């Protein structure tokens, strides 16, 4: 019994912790499928977390916070677009720069607004996303195994958790079922084909980058208004990079992205419960080792020990018209 309860608790945290990864991972998917590398997911999440935490605290409304988060993230996305699409700058360097910019700006603004050493005030009530209890939770609870699983793992999350999960089929449909998706995928594979077909490469890529901004906005807002109750310095703690790793792991496919993010979320959940890991493995595992696990796994994935990842062919290169 004790083990099953622990497992449920870990799976519950898995879902919570996977959500920002999933938003950011799908965000990266749109950008990279359109041929724009984005290692600035981290910065966009961070600035969105700050903006949403701050605005939610000031207005007392989580929805205003969410909007502000998306807007802030969009601003960084737009800069990335200008640098890498219009001015054909180095996309990796632009991403690095924006991550630093976000890291500094968030503290400056939070300090200016609240004077609490770069954090935003603790949120409560309507300023946070509350937990949603799904229908039938109590009815099903007595059912063995499935009941507690439904009640403790599936039910009882913030709205954004379910939104993130819904974004997976939505992304899949947009990518493979619509005109927009066809053009988006084409522009990441061969922008020349899109251009000569009379579709603007620039506009497609900007659209993709802005979608990335919106989804990162969700990721950041979730961090500050649902996962935690407010913004803290560097609160994203490398999640943008883990999301990037999940994207590679998933080979730029939406459904695989879901599984990759759940896996990495699971590792993060494990790191929170070293006691459970110790019980199961019967040896003491140092906490830093658990912390490092997602990164180590990502390196193994990148090394091709777990399948080969082939990125979109035109990724990372600015489009220059040529005959």
């Amino acid at each position, binding site marked *: 019994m004790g083990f099953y309860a622990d497992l449920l608790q870990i799976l519950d945290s898995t879902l919570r912790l996977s959500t920002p990864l999933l938003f950011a991972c799908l965000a990266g998917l749109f950008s990279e499928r359109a041929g724009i590398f984005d290692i600035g997911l981290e910065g966009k999440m961070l600035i969105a977390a700050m903006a949403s935490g701050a605005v939610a605290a000031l207005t007392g409304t989580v929805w205003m916070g969410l909007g502000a988060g998306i807007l802030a993230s969009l601003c960084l996305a737009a800069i990335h677009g200008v640098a890498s699409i219009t001015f054909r700058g180095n996309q990796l360097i632009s991403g690095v720069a924006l991550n630093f910019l976000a890291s500094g700006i968030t503290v400056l603004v939070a300090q200016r607004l609240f004077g609490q050493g770069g954090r935003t005030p603790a949120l409560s009530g309507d300023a946070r996303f509350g937990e949603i209890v799904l229908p039938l939770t109590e009815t099903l609870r007595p059912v063995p195994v499935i009941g507690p699983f439904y009640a403790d793992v599936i039910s009882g999350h913030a709205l954004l958790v379910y939104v993130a999960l819904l974004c997976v089929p939505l992304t899949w449909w947009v990518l*493979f*079922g*619509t*005109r*927009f*998706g*066809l*053009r988006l*995928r*084409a522009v990441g*594979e*061969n922008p*020349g*084909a*899109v*251009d*000569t*077909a*009379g*579709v*603007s490469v620039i506009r497609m890529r900007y659209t993709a980058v802005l979608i990335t901004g919106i989804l990162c906005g969700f990721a950041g807002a979730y961090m500050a208004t649902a996962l935690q109750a407010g913004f803290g310095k560097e609160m994203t703690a490398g999640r943008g990079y883990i999301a990037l790793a999940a994207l590679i792991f998933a080979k730029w496919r939406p459904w695989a992205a879901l599984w990759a993010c759940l896996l990495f979320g699971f590792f993060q959940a494990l790191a929170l419960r070293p006691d459970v890991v110790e019980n199961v493995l019967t040896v003491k595992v140092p906490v830093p080792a658990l912390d490092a696990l997602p990164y180590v796994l990502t390196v193994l994935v990148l090394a091709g020990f777990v399948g080969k990842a082939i990125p979109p*062919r035109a990724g990372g290169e600015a489009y220059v*018209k040529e*005959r």
Partner: protein
Amino acid sequence: MTTNPAIELRGISKAFGPVQANSDINLRVERGTIHGIIGENGAGKSTLMSILYGFYKADAGEILIGGQPVAIPDSQAAIRAGIGMVFQHFKLVQNFTVLENVVLGAEDGALLRPSLAKARKLLADLARDYELEVDPDEVIEELSVGHQQRVEILKALYRQADILILDEPTGVLTPAEADHLFRILRGLKEQGKTVVLITHKLREIMEITDAVSVMRRGEMVATVTTAETSPEQLAELMVGRKVLLRVDKTPAVPGRTVLEVENLRVSDADGVERVKGISFSIRAGEILGIAGVAGNGQSQLLEVLGGISPATGTVRVNGDAIDLSGRHSNGQTRRARGIAHVPEDRQHLGLIMDFMAWENVIFGYHNDPAYQKNRLIMDNAGIVREAQAKMKRFDVRPPIPTLQAKSFSGGNQQKIVLARELERAPDLLLVGQPTRGVDIGAIEFIHQRLIELRDAGKAVLLVSVELDEILSLSDRIAVMFDGRIMGERDPAATNERELGLLMAGIAGEGAAA
């Protein structure tokens, strides 16, 4: 009553910085004809057509389509004006299906499924009408080059193009595929479409066009009716003076065997076999020309011999076997064996475009003790001096060793590569497409140098897709098709037709008859 021409260009000019790519171009293309545009590389043909397709904006001039002045700021506008274009390098998404590629940019609505269904039907009709059969569900990367080209034509027709522009369409095709293409183009003409064919091959112009315009150094020098002209006249118009298609040379005096290749097999990164067990040899003092349509294994052959990629089989140079596994050898060890290599793609292999000329003059030979001041430091000043001397001897203009490679013209870049590779008097010279993108004056210079090297008793392996070049330089000709050598011919006893059949994979004396 004369109808309005399909295309009329008036006073089109376009400059890239100080380079005038097009100056004051006037052109009339009559409706329902096949109109050729011919000129050397760099004559401005492609720039002109790119302006017509909205890729570049002209600095001055006017475009009329069907008698109406139109502005073509982008490809969308060109498509609306009824212009379709088949680029030299296909604009296809490699991992999309034929259907997806055709539909891309011309979808009917926000949802994909109805568009694809409609396109499938239309495509079947077009395929029937114009001999343009392709499986609509095949992925592009699985298709042959000829079929990919059909997809490009289908794309244009699907967009209801009345005017079809093809840029060097036969460069990657076998003669048989080219013939099929020409049948398609004639079919289009019969349906009232207008075709503009850009090429530098006189034979094609004579075979299929109704009228031909000749471009030279950014200017339109003449437009003539094909039936009233001759290849000689067109060639003269193209280059501005009489050209020597034949190179003066004495008969070869072959000596000992320098290169022996036996059962050489090469697979590419995807595991596809590109060279399928070929054998040949070259003796000192002779040039073996390898003819073939691009992409039939010639590039891989050069790369293997140059030590860039691994292979299986046996290769002996001066009687000693060389390592083909790539584990104990590379470009450095090949050079130490007296093999020099002028690569097909000088901009991506032969030169570092951002390096200065003097740095490029030692590229690949940078470990030579002569270039070192001591065990650690290179003798940069000495290298600059030597580079300058070499550049002067090879007539590189300007002979300034501190200029970056990218600031030289194509011909002068090639001369820098040749200066580096030829002046070391190698036993074996590998040379690929020596005159691609090189102006006519430099071609003569380069050809003479290759003959001189042969006459100095060196072995030369020449790979070229230009049959003229192969015929005029080689002492023996081998034709490659699909990774195999289809046959060897004596240049004095063969002709373009026979070689063309071999290039198309039709083997043997019997089949040629």
